[in-house]
């Protein structure tokens, strides 16, 4: 093979791998990405039952009901609307009423959200980032949700 042919072989090989990778990425984008939404937006977004998505909001105070075999029911709210959530399993350490939560799962036909996973993932302010952003947008943010950060603590000298 000449130098040119060799180089062309290499380039063709590289392009083939890249094309395969692009196809894989596009395919995965279509099938495996989950959208995030809040209770208030479920109605307007017309999410079909069975479609997996992430639901974020605050756990409604007083809504947590524990049943047999680790079944739990609670409601997630964003201040505008509530969605009942059913889950079976151990809730994370940081799951608390009145605090932020993200659940992954799908709605059934009666409007109950069946969660496969419940995350109370958070930074030190006990608030999942996506939930905090939504609450702010909706104007339901309360300042005591976040501790004061270092920057605005009083009496600091530079």
């Amino acid at each position, binding site marked *: *093979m000449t*130098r040119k042919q*060799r180089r062309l*072989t*290499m380039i063709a*090989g*590289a392009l083939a*791998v*890249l094309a*395969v*990778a692009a196809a*894989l*990425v596009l*395919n*995965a*984008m279509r*099938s*495996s*990405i*989950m*959208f*995030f939404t809040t209770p208030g937006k479920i109605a307007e977004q017309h999410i079909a039952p069975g479609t997996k998505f*992430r639901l974020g909001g605050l756990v409604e105070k007083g809504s947590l009901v524990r049943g047999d*075999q*680790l079944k739990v029911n609670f409601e997630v709210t964003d201040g505008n609307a509530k969605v009942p959530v059913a889950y079976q*399993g*151990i*809730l994370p*350490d*940081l799951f608390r009423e009145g605090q932020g939560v993200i659940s992954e799962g799908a709605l059934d036909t009666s409007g109950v959200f069946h969660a496969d996973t419940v995350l109370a993932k958070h*930074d*030190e302010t006990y608030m999942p*980032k*996506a939930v*905090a*952003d939504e609450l*702010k947008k909706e104007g339901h943010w309360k300042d005591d949700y976040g501790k004061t*950060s*270092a*920057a605005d*603590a009083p*009496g*600091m*000298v*530079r």
Partner: protein
Amino acid sequence: MIAEGGHYALVLALGLALIQSFVPLIGARVNDPALMNVSRSTAIAQFAFVLLSFFALVSLHVMSDFSVVNVYENSHSLKPLIYKITGVWGNHEGSMLLWVFILALFGALVAIFGVNLPLSLRAHVLAVQAWIATAFYLFILLTSNPFLRIANPPIEGRDLNPILQDPGLAVHPPMLYLGYVGFSISFSFAIAALIEGRIDAAWARWVRPWTLMAWIFLTLGIAMGSYWAYYELGWGGWWFWDPVENASLMPWLAGTALLHSAVVMEKREALKIWTVLLAILTFSLSLLGTFLVRSGVLTSVHAFATDPRRGVFILMILCVFIGGSLSFYAWRAASLKQGGLFAPISREGALVLNNLLLTTACATVFVGTLYPLALEVLTGEKISVGAPFFNLTFAPLFLPLLLAVPFGPLLAWKRGDLIGAAQRLMTAGIAALATIAIVWAWEKGGSALAPLAIGLAVFVIIGSAVDIAERIKLFRAPLGTSWDRARGLPRSTWGTAFAHAGLGIALIGVVCESTWNIEHIATMRLNDTAQLGSYSVTFDGMKSQQGPNYREDIATFAIRQGGVQVGTMTPSKRSFTTRGMSTTEAALMTRGASQLYISLGAAEPNGSITARIYYKPLVLLIWFGPVLMAFGGALSLSDRRLRVGAPKPARPKLSGVAQPAE
């Protein structure tokens, strides 16, 4: 005083870095050895000052000086000593200080061990190193000063995030940073080569040990982090495809590619331009990782928006270094001469395939990590890209790579014989097929994928053994001869075999853990028993005790196998009063390479407890594999040819500058 001293030392280090950024360059321009040698002293002095600064922060933490904001926010007087020390880098400011500390360390190492580098190359490398250092010193001093004081010091600190109060914090971040920051050396060498417009096999020989060293630490750091997440987060997962994890995986993938392409450059002077690009990309991905983790863009876009100074500053560093180096590359790359021709089927060809698949896999991780961020910034829409995405993209690209791994070392340079290599791999192929059949029969028609993947892993492991066996003529020559040949083999050959085998071993662990993991989640009353495989787990009761800065509820489980008690496990829940947080401490019991894993849920008022119990077959192989890879890397590093600072490159200095007496 100590805080001010530490702050001042950091400012002095910045001054030295500024000198080191320009003086050696001028020296190289006018060919003045004295000016070029300035870089050596400044690099060492810079390290001394950063060391001082770092020790200042450590001692402030150890002494619990709560008049310093950083200590107040992340420490507590009752915290055990080890966490007072590790807490230094368990927060933003401290971890950035660790970052520059390691950067300065590497700069000093190049200065000390680079005595046999051509003077101008060393001057250029250290100057580029100083550019990076300058940027990060400025970042720390202007936006993340760890030595800020509080006017009215509180009596007690706010304690370190309990999740971080773990021995893992002592090892994981330093290891990871040694890896991340270690790639800055390859980067500096690449930029220096572009400035000089000259690059040769000797360059690759100098770059490889540094890359290898960084790669070893990064490998161990990632494995360590994964094991830490596994036992600390309490649900037995060991890899989450979380952006923070991906941030460390991307430089690892690019660095692995760099390691391999540098071999081609060293042996055959081919792939020069590509190797330089990979060196730039690898460190760029390390910078990107630092940005993702440190700017707060991941934990909260909101934090990024309200206190944008840090995020924007580090984004600027990112743009200047990545954009600058890539533009410089585009401008200067053509000046590097191409060398060594090779056929597509050859050792070089195999290494090109390795590079292609690794970088493409890296690109899919890049897309999966940054696409959600980009989408949110552009449209405000929030999506999550999780494990399913990476299983569908990363895995299909990694499988052909694994299949190709055993072929690489068996192919000759320049022009290889694929059929010959396949014949020599016959043993490995047969072993793989036998494994597939056995596993298939054993699992009695479960998933078809698992036996195939394990077969592939066996192919990789036996394949690496075949490479060694071929070289020492095992069973074809008398055993004594084989033994002598084995001892005569270069250590890097052994290193390759171990590292490749490690890949196969990790794959076995991954497949077994994810396929045959047994999970049992239940509410257990006193003396309740759960059965997992051949193990029975009995709940024996709860007790409470007081730790140094937490209260702990400990459950006791008796483990029996075939009626015989093999041990007890004591998972616990700790509640930390200062932060009002609780953590779950999982209990692990190792049986061979498998583990039993218990973590606690909520305790019920009636004395029963919810628990997650897992049996994870061969799970330890997941981390044993990377450890073996790192061991292989260390063997390679100890090879005479690559020893850091080993005397005599193939060609004596080309710079034409006499080395001054030192």
